[in-house]
C-alpha cells in the first residue's frame, strides 16, 4: 500500500444549515490506497462532509481537491472517478440487479459485465432478482456493486454496516477489504469503533462539525493510554460479539 500522495485534500471546510453549523472548519487528507474512516456520533457532520466531497452539496467556505482538481469546478470529471454508496439510498423497484447495473454503467457511458461486478460482492446468484427481494446485507452489498460500475479510484461508503447483523457486517468488511486490496482508496463513515479498528488505516473523529482527532487507530489508543486513561473493567481476551459469533457461527444468514 503506497501512502505517499494525497488523493483527497480537504481544506477548512464550512457548511451551515440555518442556525446549525454542520461542518465547522474541517481539514484532512486521504492518501492514495488507504482506508480512511470518519467517526463520530449522529449529527457530527460526517455525512455533510462526505456529500461535499462527493460534489452533491456545496460548501459555504473551504476547498476540496480530488487528484488536485477542485471538487466543484471539475465535478463532472470527479464523478467519473468516484463511486458512492449513500447512507440509505435505494434503487428502482422494477429492474433486476443486472439491469440496474447496466443502467448505472450507461450513466458513465460504459459497458460492463454485470455478473463480474456482482461476483465482487458475492451476489452473482441474485442477478435476476429485484432489490425488494434482498436482505439488508445484500442490499448494502449491491449498493457497493452499483458504486463499482465505473471502476472508481475512490469509494465512499456512508455507514455501510448500520443495521446489519454481526455476520452480515463481517461479510461486508471482507468485501470492503477486497476492494481496497484491488487498489481502491476507501473513505467510510461509521459509528462502530470495532469497524474502524478492523478496517481503517487512519481515522478522523468528528464532533459537532469539527475534527477532534486524526491518526491511526493504534496511535489514538496509545495517546489515550499515555495520558493515564484506565478502563474500569479489565480488558478481556474476547468480547460479547466474539461470544455471539462463536455461538451463531460466521456464516451469512440470507
Amino acid at each position, binding site marked *: 500500500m503506497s501512502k505517499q500522495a494525497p488523493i483527497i485534500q480537504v481544506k477548512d471546510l464550512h457548511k451551515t444549515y440555518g442556525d446549525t453549523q454542520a461542518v465547522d472548519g474541517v481539514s484532512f487528507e486521504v492518501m492514495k490506497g488507504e482506508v480512511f474512516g470518519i467517526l463520530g456520533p449522529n449529527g457530527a457532520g460526517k455525512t455533510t462532509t462526505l456529500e461535499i466531497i*462527493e*460534489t*452533491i452539496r456545496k460548501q459555504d467556505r473551504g476547498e476540496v481537491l480530488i487528484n488536485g482538481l477542485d471538487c466543484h469546478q471539475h465535478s*463532472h470529471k470527479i*464523478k*467519473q472517478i*468516484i463511486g*458512492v454508496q*449513500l*447512507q*440509505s*439510498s*435505494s*434503487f*428502482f*423497484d*422494477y*429492474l433486476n440487479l443486472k*439491469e440496474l447495473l*447496466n*443502467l*448505472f454503467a*450507461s*450513466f*458513465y*457511458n460504459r459497458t460492463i459485465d454485470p455478473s463480474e461486478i456482482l461476483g465482487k460482492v458475492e451476489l452473482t446468484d441474485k442477478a435476476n432478482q429485484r432489490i425488494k427481494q434482498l436482505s439488508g446485507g445484500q442490499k448494502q452489498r449491491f449498493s457497493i456493486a*452499483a458504486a463499482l460500475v*465505473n471502476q472508481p479510484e475512490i469509494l465512499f461508503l456512508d455507514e455501510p454496516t448500520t443495521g446489519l447483523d454481526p455476520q452480515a457486517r463481517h461479510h461486508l468488511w471482507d468485501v470492503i477489504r477486497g476492494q481496497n486490496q484491488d487498489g481502491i482508496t476507501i473513505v467510510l463513515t461509521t459509528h462502530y469503533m470495532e469497524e474502524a479498528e478492523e478496517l481503517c488505516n487512519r481515522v478522523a473523529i468528528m464532533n459537532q462539525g469539527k475534527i477532534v482527532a486524526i491518526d491511526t487507530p493504534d496511535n489514538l489508543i496509545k495517546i489515550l493510554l499515555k495520558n493515564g486513561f484506565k478502563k474500569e473493567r479489565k480488558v478481556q481476551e474476547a468480547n460479547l460479539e466474539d461470544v455471539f459469533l462463536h455461538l451463531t457461527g460466521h456464516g451469512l444468514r440470507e
Partner: protein
Amino acid sequence: MKTLPIFTSSLKMFLRDKHAWMWGLFIPLFIMTIFGLMDFNQLGSIRIGVVDLAQNELSEQIAGALEEASVLKVQQGDEPILREKIEKGDIDLLLYLPQDLSVAEPMQTGQPTELKLLFNQGQFEQTGTGILIVNQILTQFSLQAAQGSTLFALNQEPVDSRNFSYMDFMIPGIVGMMIMQLGIIGVAMIVVKYREQDILKRLRVTPMNPLLFLVSQVFTRLFLLMAQAGLIILLGKLFFDLHLYGNLFYIFVTALLGSLVFLSLGFAISGVAKSINTAMSMAQLIQMPMMFLSGIFFSREAFPSWLQKITDYLPLTYLAEALRKTMIEHATLYDVRTQLIALTLWVVGGLFLAVKLFRWE
C-alpha cells in the same frame, strides 16, 4: 452519454409497474363495463299500462298502435295491479279502455267516449310526451272511423344519422380521465418516491445529468399513456360499440397536449409534497373534483349555470370536450382550437408551477 439504455430502462420500469396498468387500463375498462351494462339509452322510454275492459277489436287495435310507438313500453294487465304500479312509480301512464268502447256509439250521439288516463305527476317529461303520443294515436283512430280525409301526410325518410350512444359520450371522457390520473399520480408519486428514497441523490453522484433521467421518465410515460389511450379506444370500438369517426392523428395530438398538462401538474405536486402519502392526497384532491365536474360520466348541462361557467375552465373539461369532438364528431384540430389553446395555456401554467416548485432534495 448513452441515452438509449436510460429510455429503455424507464420503459421497462413502467411496463412492469402494476399500478400503472391498473390506473391506465383496468379501472377505465371496469368503469366502461359497469356503465355499459347500465344501458342509459333505455331510460328515455315511457312506460304505459293499459287496462283493456272492452276486449273487442277496437281496443286491441288501439293497444297494438300504442305498442308500435317505439318510445312507449306497453304493459297490459288487470286494473288493481297496474294501479299499484303507477302509484309505486313503476309506470308513468295508465290508460283505461272502457267496456263500452266502440266506434258506432260516439258517431251516433256525437258525444266522444271518455277514456281515463292516469299519469304520474312527478314525471313531467315522460308523461307530457306520453300523453301527446296517446292523443295522437287516438286522433288517428277517430279520423279513420269518421272517414274524414287526411289533409296532411308526413312523408318519412330515414336518414342514417350518427346516433350517439352513452358510450360515445363516455369513452372519450374516460380516456381523458385516464390521462389525468396517470399523468398526475404517475409523475408525482415517482418523483416523490425517488426523492424520499434518495434515488435522485444517488443519480446526482453520477456524471449523468439527472434531468435527462426525468425527461426519459416523462417521455416513456407519455408513450405509454398514448398506447393505453389507443388500447381503450380500440376496446371501446370492439366491445362497447363506440362510434369512432375521428381522425386518429387529431385524437393523438389532443391526447398528447392533455397529457402534458397533467404531467406538469404532477411535477408541481411532487415539488410541494414531502412524502408519498401527501403526494397521493394532493393528487386525489385535484383529481376527484375534476372527475365529477368535467363532464366525464354525464353532461355538465345538468349543472346550475354558475357551476357550468366555473367548470368550463378546468383542464379535464377542455380535454374531454376536445377528445369527444375529435373522436366522435369528425372535428378537425381547427374545430377544437378553443380547447387546444386553453390546454396549451394550462401546459404553460403547469410548467411554470413545475419549474418553480420542483426540488431535487
